């Protein structure tokens, strides 16, 4: 479980996060949503320790991140898997080498054990035949799946995904969403996903935190988001014609 308490973060005097408090439970897909510029990526980077913050605290299963020693931070980070928006695969390595990388860095496994594990996770993300391809030879969807495979190869306790569906067609985006949810359930990982994709919200939003201008504007789930009267949320959720029609149908059904 990850707990965030009154998180404040500024850049050059401009406050980007204005005291966000929330928690992310184990075994659930937790979505952080909001418009571009709402502070989602900064929030995620603070969780990961890539940005220092001025005030507040982040607790990983009771351990306050800012109070950990460098070694303890390094050990904690070895338990974190991250899927970046642009996949962030190492372009000088093949797909198999990318996935094997965390094992080489943090485990004492033999080469055959590592290869077995890489085969297993690549099969798990349906990339059985992509071992020797370079990242540049893979499609956007494949790159995302490789990034997920790399993130889970070392059995992480926490999985972070920054807009895992950006740049993907709707069908592939659903495949990626479902894959993340399956993996979260299967390995009981605490998963935090940054997204502004409403499909993801509906598909896998077991917990949703809505950010607006650096503040938490709403918190709920995919079951409650369509029932809320919070104007900030409804304005975001029903911004497309399709979603407006879905809402109309929901209201008519209710009447």
């Amino acid at each position, binding site marked *: 479980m990850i707990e965030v308490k009154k998180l404040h973060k500024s850049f050059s005097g401009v406050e980007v996060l204005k005291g966000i408090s929330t928690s992310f439970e184990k075994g659930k897909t937790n979505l952080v949503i909001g418009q571009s510029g709402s502070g989602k990526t900064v929030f995620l980077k603070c969780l990961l320790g890539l940005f220092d913050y001025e005030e507040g605290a982040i607790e990983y299963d009771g351990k306050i991140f800012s109070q950990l020693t460098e070694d303890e*931070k390094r*050990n904690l*980070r070895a338990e974190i898997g991250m899927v970046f928006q*642009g996949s*962030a695969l190492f372009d000088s390595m093949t797909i198999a080498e990318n996935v094997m990388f965390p094992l080489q860095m943090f485990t004492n496994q033999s080469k055959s054990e590592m290869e077995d594990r890489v085969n297993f996770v690549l099969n798990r993300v349906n990339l059985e035949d992509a071992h020797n391809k370079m990242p540049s030879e893979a499609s956007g969807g494949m790159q995302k799946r490789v990034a997920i495979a790399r993130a889970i190869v070392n059995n992480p306790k926490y999985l972070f995904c920054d807009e895992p569906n950006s740049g993907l067609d709707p069908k592939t985006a659903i495949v990626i969403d479902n894959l993340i949810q399956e993996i979260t359930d299967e390995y009981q990982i605490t998963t935090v996903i940054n997204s502004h994709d409403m499909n993801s919200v509906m598909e896998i939003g077991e917990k949703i935190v809505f950010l607006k201008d650096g503040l938490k504007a709403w918190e709920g789930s995919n079951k409650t988001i369509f029932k809320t009267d919070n104007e900030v949320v409804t304005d975001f959720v029903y911004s497309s014609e399709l979603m407006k029609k879905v809402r109309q149908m929901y209201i008519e059904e209710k009447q």
Partner: protein
Amino acid sequence: MTYLSNIGAYFLMIVEMFRKPTRWSVMKKLILKDIDDLIIGSLGIVAFISFFVGGVITIQTALNINNPLIPKYLVGFATRQSIILEFAPTFTSIIMAGKVGSFITSSIGTMRVTEQIDALEVMGINSLNYLILPKTIALLLYPFAIAIGMFLGIFGGMAACVFGGYTSLEDYILGIQTDFQSFHVIYSFIKTFVFAFILATIPSFHGYYMKGGALEVGKASTTSFVWTSVVIILLNYILTDMMLGR
């Protein structure tokens, strides 16, 4: 103020580069890859330039020595001194600042832009150690490339001399043997080690701390070339004054 802050950040980067070392099994592969990319991959251009610049030095020296009282073997002597003392260590390092320096800045800068450095940090890896230390160690072999440059420069001078008819082979060989001081070669290699460290770290600094996108990667490469060259020229003066000055 920005310059001072950048100088401070550069030295902090060097200190950080030696902390939290990457596993030797991984580091070994990175070093070998960087030796291939930075040293082996540069031998062709170093050899080509050294050979022809050696030839040009010989021709120009021969054409300027037209006084019959000056012995012909001075052509070989002047070529050797020019190549060992300045051309091979300094001039080649400026060329390498363009070739190797731009490669280092653009490759690390692209990793920054595409969040690959963030990926390393999230995994708990000291990205400075992982990215920059192997390049610094690989460039310890840089004097090897310079030694080849010295040999080919003197050889190029000999070829120009003989085939251009500027002086005889015997005079040229006598010239390159005349008043040889081994300390000049030591001085040259000491400079080369210092330049190798500069060639690895300044371009890495500009790539690692760059901000922005693809356009900024290009700008960072240009800035890195300028600063690497400036520092090499300044250190060349300081080291020469320290080791050869009165």
